[in-house]
């Protein structure tokens, strides 16, 4: 078997203890389900002297449905999330996105926190060490040049988690624990458009929970494109939350994944609200989606394909939700 790097494994029982351990050990990493971290460690993409297993922290477990919102611990597995009847009924985009991640066995281990903190992906990065060495590495790790955009000063590796766009469309916020205490961020503020520093977490900060408001009258959904019908990361993923009032659109939020270094909330959709969802509105919607994404050559599927397909994916999903809401 290939050798895994050796390390110290710690299992704190509270978020505060985890954060303190992280602060006291410079090269440490959090481990949740391990379905992203273990492949990355194996490929030499992550290096660590200390692994802090979050599995023993009671606070990170569990889903609580309150009157006006749902509270989800970061340690909740995607299988549990997808199977929760309240979430499937009230927040279908979230259940559908959780179910669209990887395969059934991965979802038994994979957590919501790990999905939201997933490393960004690129065809020049998610490769073995010999492969990357033969290609002289790239800026994201051990190299200087971006192979996707050689003149670029930044990395365009794509954020490819399925759940983040659903939570963006559902207007979620996240609770973060750090050595200086706790803070809350809108999920949109949790991400940066930078393939090398895509999370707004300060060193050692921990994602503890996600809160999603319940919005009566809104419907939602998630659709993704991938090479095979299962297992694969999204080439593009689209989440939509929509409210319909008779023949007029009463509210619309769209977020995309896999087509930018952060999950992208599409701007400008307010212009469509209050109008009927006719062909002109749908054409406008496609334009806004295209303007909001930045697909680069990070996947084996071409950029023109992903640029063409993403707005159509959005259009189809919006049309379906609109029709169902009639």
């Amino acid at each position: 078997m290939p050798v895994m790097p050796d390390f110290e494994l710690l299992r704190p029982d509270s978020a505060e203890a985890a954060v303190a351990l992280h602060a006291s050990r410079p090269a440490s990493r959090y481990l949740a389900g391990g379905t992203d971290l273990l492949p990355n460690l194996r490929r030499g993409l992550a290096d660590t002297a200390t692994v802090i297993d979050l599995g023993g922290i009671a606070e990170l477990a569990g889903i609580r449905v309150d009157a006006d919102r749902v509270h989800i611990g970061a340690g909740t597995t995607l299988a549990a999330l997808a199977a929760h009847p309240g979430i499937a009924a009230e927040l279908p985009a979230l259940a559908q996105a959780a179910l669209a991640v990887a395969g059934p066995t991965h979802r038994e281990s994979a957590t919501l926190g790990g999905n939201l903190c997933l490393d960004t992906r690129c065809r020049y990065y998610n490769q073995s060490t010999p492969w990357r060495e033969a290609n002289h590495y790239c800026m994201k790790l051990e190299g200087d040049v971006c192979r996707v955009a050689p003149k670029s000063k930044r990395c365009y590796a794509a954020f490819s988690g399925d759940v983040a766009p659903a939570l963006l469309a559902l207007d979620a916020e996240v609770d973060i624990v750090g050595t200086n205490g706790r803070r809350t961020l809108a999920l949109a503020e949790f991400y940066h458009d930078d393939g090398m520093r895509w999370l707004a977490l300060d060193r050692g900060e921990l994602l503890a929970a996600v809160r999603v408001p319940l919005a009566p009258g809104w419907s939602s959904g998630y659709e993704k494109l991938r090479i095979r019908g299962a297992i694969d990361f999204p080439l593009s993923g689209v989440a939509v939350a929509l409210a319909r009032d008779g023949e007029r659109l009463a509210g619309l939020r769209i977020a995309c994944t896999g087509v930018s270094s952060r999950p992208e909330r599409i701007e400008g959709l307010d212009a469509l609200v209050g109008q009927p969802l006719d062909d002109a509105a749908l054409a406008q919607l496609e334009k806004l989606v295209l303007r909001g994404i930045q697909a680069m050559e990070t996947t084996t599927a071409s950029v023109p394909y992903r640029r063409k397909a993403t707005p159509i994916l959005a259009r189809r999903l919006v049309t379906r939700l609109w029709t169902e809401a009639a």
Partner: protein
Amino acid sequence: MMSVETEIRFKLNGREVSLKVPVAMKTLAMLRDKLGMTGTKYACGEGECGACTVEVDGRTVNSCLMYAVDCDGRELVTIEGLRTPEGLHPVQQAFVDHGAVQCGFCMPGMIMQAKNLIENNPGLTREEAQRGLEGNLCRCTGYTKVLDAVEAVVSGKSCGSRP
């Protein structure tokens, strides 16, 4: 770097096991290399194929993506745990009866996942079985007969019968 070993205890196919494992060792490596239980297969080693599927506390996971130390206090079932003195497990027998096995390499994972699906989903449909097995790749591409076998078990038409 010096290897740090940790003592763990867990139940493996109904028997108590205790052993020392390096922290960085995966459950798959522990089963195969430490315990000599080579039924669980090592193929991709990075979560892509499902050949290493085992049951942990009643849920199926990719044992190549789980540290061995994480087995502490849990209950594992591997393909070796399915057979009884009376013979093959009904799911195993159905796979044989339906010719679902070609080279056989994916089969321990496929059968563990199929068994888990059947046990947890009474009245499992063919489509649900297909979704449930989508993380188990077969490079001999024999998926149809696998689904036939699962369907036969669900409908009670299998259990050791020869076609």
